[in-house]
């Protein structure tokens, strides 16, 4: 397919004047493209097929970085830098934060909830690939790129021209964007707010829980103090002569007392 594209472009370029193809790829751009396109594709495949979600995020970082370099190559330095700063800097770090909060071992289950979903997804993916490839093949045979050299107009460079368009023709969309960002920030605060403080029992509920039936409201008895033993592991004696198990902490091992120690002295 790529050979056909190349052939169509050669014919089109030969047929028309060479100045119309000013946006064609230079050889340096070709080298960068063929180095970074496999990285982008491999990152995308690795993101889909990695079992660990953190690995998926790191694969996606490599793909997004490659795309940022592509934007810079296609005479879009501002959009390329924004891609690297916003996507690989901010958004992916946000993803990693949420992964760490949720727990990175929350991997996929192998069980299929919908029967045959993976097969259907594979068929749909192949169908989508075929559809997009057909559209591209029919549409892009004789494309000539004009390039952005003449797009700057009176401005000196692409970035001032971009700023000029953004603050004149697209200024309404730009202002709407600020409203969108504020709404998103407020929405994130509302969704992220946890009312854990309201779930804590107040004093009345604590007191009622303390005096409810079956609960012993007083403090537990202290350990036993005998003539031969007074450590915290010696259990106290109840009035009937048996040991009080609640006088020794559950985490310590109760000491076996010799019969003479705990007997009453006469």
């Amino acid at each position, binding site marked *: 397919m790529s050979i056909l594209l190349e052939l169509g472009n050669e014919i089109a370029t030969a047929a028309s004047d060479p100045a119309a193809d000013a946006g*064609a790829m230079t050889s340096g751009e070709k080298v960068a493209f063929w180095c970074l396109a496999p990285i982008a594709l491999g990152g995308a495949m690795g993101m*889909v097929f990695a079992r660990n979600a953190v690995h998926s995020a790191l694969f996606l970082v490599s793909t997004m970085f490659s795309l940022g370099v592509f934007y810079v190559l296609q005479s879009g330095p501002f959009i390329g830098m924004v891609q690297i700063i916003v996507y690989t800097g901010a*958004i992916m770090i946000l993803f990693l934060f949420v992964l760490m909060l949720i727990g990175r071992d929350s991997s996929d289950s192998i069980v299929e909830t919908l029967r045959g979903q993976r097969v259907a997804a594979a068929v749909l*993916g192949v169908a989508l690939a075929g559809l997009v490839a057909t559209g591209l093949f029919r549409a892009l045979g004789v494309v000539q790129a004009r390039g952005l050299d003449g797009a700057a107009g009176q401005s000196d460079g692409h970035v001032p021209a971009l700023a000029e368009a953004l603050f004149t023709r697209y200024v309404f969309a730009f202002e709407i964007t600020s409203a969108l960002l504020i709404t998103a920030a407020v929405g994130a605060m509302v*969704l992220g707010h946890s009312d854990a403080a309201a779930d804590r029992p107040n004093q009345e509920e604590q007191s009622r829980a303390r005096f409810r039936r079956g609960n012993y409201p007083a403090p537990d008895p202290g350990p036993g103090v005998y003539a031969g033993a007074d450590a915290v592991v010696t259990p106290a004696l109840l009035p009937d002569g048996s040991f009080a198990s609640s006088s020794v902490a559950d985490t310590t091992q109760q000491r076996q007392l010799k019969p003479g120690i705990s007997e009453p002295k006469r």
Partner: protein
Amino acid sequence: MSPTYYLVLAAALFTIGAVGVLVRRNAIVVFMCVELMLNAVNLTLVTFSRINGTLDGQIMAFFVMVVAAAEVVIGLAIIMAIFRSRRTASVDDANLLKY
């Protein structure tokens, strides 16, 4: 050679992202696949901007990035809220509306 290879690459990335959305179960990975699809469309916009010789495509990609950032913030907050109530990040387990 005109920059149509970028469009082919963007189409491949978009397809991979779509398959990932359909196949993966972890809500965060599904979300990353949506981000990959948005990035593929951005690459298409920037390439068409170059082919047509105007800067409008780059401005459109810029707005797509802003909307994607807002979407990520809200989506991750929703995933966190679901995780807090149901202790899971799998899209299969949030099925209370099913029946």
